[in-house]
């Protein structure tokens, strides 16, 4: 995208205005991905915060071969993986444990705000195993193709398609049982 190329160019030459534009353009997208993947809003905010801070520090060394959006998305996904590996979030919860993550922050300190419908979807997503959740979220919200996700997860496209199918099936049964309540 030409606008992004120009923004990167200006950012590299020191424009803080370009940095602000990049932040405004992509923060919602990245926060949404992180929250959908992690369910824990606090941890998701930390991940996205760290990505932008590192980006802001990287003007001199930054080199993006593909798109800026994909680059930032990859940074967030890697941050998510680190959190999951470090067990700062649980990769999967059972139904009885799913629910809104109680925030230790008060409303004024929150960065990302979820409405009720989104909370319900997030509660459903967290009950899906992480590998399946990641495929669903990256495909539906990240805009990634299956072959791109396959490369990310280092598995075949067929495996990704299966994970997507199983993830949606699981979500369907969770959401149906929500409706029946």
């Amino acid at each position, binding site marked *: 995208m030409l606008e992004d190329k*120009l923004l990167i*160019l200006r950012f590299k030459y020191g424009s803080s205005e370009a940095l602000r534009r990049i932040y405004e353009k992509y923060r*919602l997208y990245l926060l949404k991905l992180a929250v959908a993947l992690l369910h824990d809003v606090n941890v998701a905010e930390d991940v996205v915060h760290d990505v932008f801070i590192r980006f802001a520090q990287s003007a001199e060394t930054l080199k993006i071969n593909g798109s800026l959006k994909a680059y930032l998305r990859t940074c967030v996904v890697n941050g998510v993986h680190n959190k999951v590996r470090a067990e700062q979030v649980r990769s999967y919860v059972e139904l009885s444990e799913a629910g809104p993550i109680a925030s230790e922050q008060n409303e004024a300190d929150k960065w990302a705000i*979820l409405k009720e419908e*989104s909370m319900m979807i997030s509660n459903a997503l967290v009950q899906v195993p992480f590998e399946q959740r990641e495929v669903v979220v990256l495909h539906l919200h990240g805009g990634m193709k299956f072959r791109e996700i396959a490369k990310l997860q280092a598995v075949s496209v067929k495996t990704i398609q299966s994970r997507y199918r199983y993830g*949606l099936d699981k979500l369907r049964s969770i959401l149906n049982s929500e409706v029946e309540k």
Partner: protein
Amino acid sequence: MRPRENIEKIIKKFNIDVNPSKDQEMVDELRKVHAKSRQSEYGTSKIDIGRIIMKSKTTKLAAVAVIIITVMIGINQFGGSIDGASVAWAEIVQRVEQSYNNYYAELLSAMEEKDVQKASSNADALSEFWQGINTLAEERLESTQESLSMLRHESFYDPFQEFEQHTFIEYAENFIAWMDRIEDDAWINEIIHVSRQMEEYAEEIRESGRHSELDFSYAEHCLPAFVAYCEWFEQLPWNGPGQVMTPTMLLTRIERDLEIARREIETLETRGVIPFIKRSVQQAQKNVMDVDIRTAASRTKEQRELCRQLTRRIDELCALIIYGEISRQDFLEQVIKQKKYRDYERFDQVLTEEFGNKGTFADYYIKRIDQALSLCDQLYEGFEHTR
């Protein structure tokens, strides 16, 4: 049970909002971090990008080249093409070529002096220059409007206070006028192809220069092909745009690309150069298809046969390259890891020994390229000589 599509729709409804005050805090924090990183890099008490960029002739020229290219992209989206006066056009060509030629000349002298730092620095600027050309040409093909709002809303020129905005717009409009007069997308595709190759070569030279004397030899390997493409760029019809690409011109390009591939293969021992060869041969393949389309109605029987043979030769070359790539990736690494061969050995010889009796791999490629070039010569006869 809800169908799959309904579930997908529901999941897509997941959304978030941001707290505006927290958002602003984040912006402020990012500005501080950004400013601090710039300050610690240069040791200045305030950000003065103009001064930083203009501290050397080299970076100044880089800034000029980059500004010109990116402004051209923006102005194009304004739909500001006009029939530029020849004087204004000459100025913009001169300005672009001046920056480009300066870097090019400095790069060549750095190579002669074996000055790795200087070569790397100039290659860096050239890489950005060609990236700009590439972007301009791609945008010309796509005709997107994405930069329009951005350039209208914000001043792009703040860091570069030495250059006046209206002057650039005037120069840029004439350059865009030239681009707009090109009726034949084949020209634009050629510019894209050449600019991508040039960008890659410049990157390779830059990276080579960062490491050591040994790696610098790879920069020398890149140079002949780099020079060949530079010569093509300099011969663009700057004064006579709008030419339709004739079959003869396409054949010239096929020859150029095959020659580039040939030079690459001849120096195969320096480093794996499959991507460069592949790009050159694929471009030749594309030009062969264009020749086919453009001459179909008027070809003689003999020309049809020559075109068919040329197509087959080029397709075979592409298959060889893919074969080489697959072999290299799947097999060669294993072979080397098994310590049957040492890392510095020519991988084409390794492939030859593993895959049978075809002579050395490089010679096999070159033979096929020579056959394709010979077919090009034969095809020249009978086409109009409009070179």
